[in-house]
């Protein structure tokens, strides 16, 4: 698909049920890219499923959360000389058919981070009201902070170039790498862009947004967004 070296990083926590089909789909629809699974302290067969698919796995001995898994994946990508790192969920919600469109602006050097967005154009995505409210709130915050609209701050389908992957090593939100991350990156002068994608429903396994996390999310992300705005980038 591309001459450049692209690594798809799949953060996975107890995803034995959907991982195999996700990996197979990436291989089928985007044969030119490499894949790395970061098993974030799973208690199920996530690692074995990935190995059986012939995909390299890096394992955290304990669970760190999506942010930590991405940091590990991006460092691996950086050290192995990849030019672009893609974040793709293990649960099958992100269709690898969109990889090419997602990668294009980053590979062409038109932006440093591209975000697969459900809202750039009508894509028929339906979220429960509380999530929709949160998405509206955080895209408004991103607009205030960055000065331009990011319609889908919560998208976990993104591509990052080398420079961004390097910065993510020492400055990255722990649990929800959403609006605060985008604000931090924009403040560092990285160019963000959005690419329309269609996301699917989770295929199996459980959503990681438990009730507790749903309540914690707005607090944490409001505070972290504010901090990303007032803190001098280190």
């Amino acid at each position, binding site marked *: 698909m591309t001459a450049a070296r692209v690594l798809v990083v799949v953060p996975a926590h107890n995803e034995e049920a959907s991982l195999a089909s996700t990996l197979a789909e990436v291989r089928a629809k985007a044969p030119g890219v*490499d894949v*790395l699974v*970061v098993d974030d302290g799973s208690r199920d067969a996530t690692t074995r499923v990935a*190995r059986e698919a*012939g995909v*390299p*796995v*890096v*394992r*955290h*001995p*304990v669970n*760190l959360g999506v942010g*930590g898994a991405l*940091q*590990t994946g991006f*460092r*691996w990508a950086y*050290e*192995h000389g990849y030019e672009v790192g893609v974040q793709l969920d293990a649960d099958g919600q992100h269709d690898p058919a969109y990889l090419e469109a997602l990668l294009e602006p980053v590979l062409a050097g038109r932006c440093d981070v591209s975000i697969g967005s459900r809202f750039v154009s009508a894509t028929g995505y339906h979220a429960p009201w509380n999530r929709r409210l949160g998405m509206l709130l955080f895209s408004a915050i991103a607009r205030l902070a960055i000065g331009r609209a990011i319609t889908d701050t919560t998208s976990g389908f993104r591509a990052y170039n080398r420079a961004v992957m390097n910065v993510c090593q020492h400055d990255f939100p*722990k649990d929800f790498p959403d609006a605060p991350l985008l604000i931090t990156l924009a403040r560092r002068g990285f160019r963000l862009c959005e690419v329309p994608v269609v996301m699917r429903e989770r295929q199996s396994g459980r959503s990681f947004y438990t009730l507790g996390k749903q309540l914690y999310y707005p607090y944490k992300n409001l505070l972290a967004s504010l901090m990303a705005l007032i803190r001098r980038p280190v």
Partner: protein
Amino acid sequence: MTFLSRTQLITALGAVLLALFVLELVRRRKLSEEYSLLWVMATTVIAVLGFSTPLLTWITHVLGFLGESSTTFAFGLAFSLAMLLYLSLKLSRLGFENHALTRDLALLRDEVETMRHGGGGSAR
């Protein structure tokens, strides 16, 4: 001037016992010297205020509290809050360090495995 009241006795005894317990924990290497300092300071304050009624009365008067017991409680509460804040700081730092170490460990283990399997790189 004043006899030791029952309250004073209990306070003083409690302070001494706590101090001894803290020192014993240090001796057994269960508590680091660093953390023991806070507790030793706290027990000293309790003991001094417990023994010296004039001092306690004077502080109460200066701070405008309603009674000596309020002063004692206020100090206790302030100490507890300070200790809790200090502990959350330490805990956050431990968390950050743990996070970084876990990621490093995962990558190092991957590197070792790759080397063991003949440096084939990604394909495993």
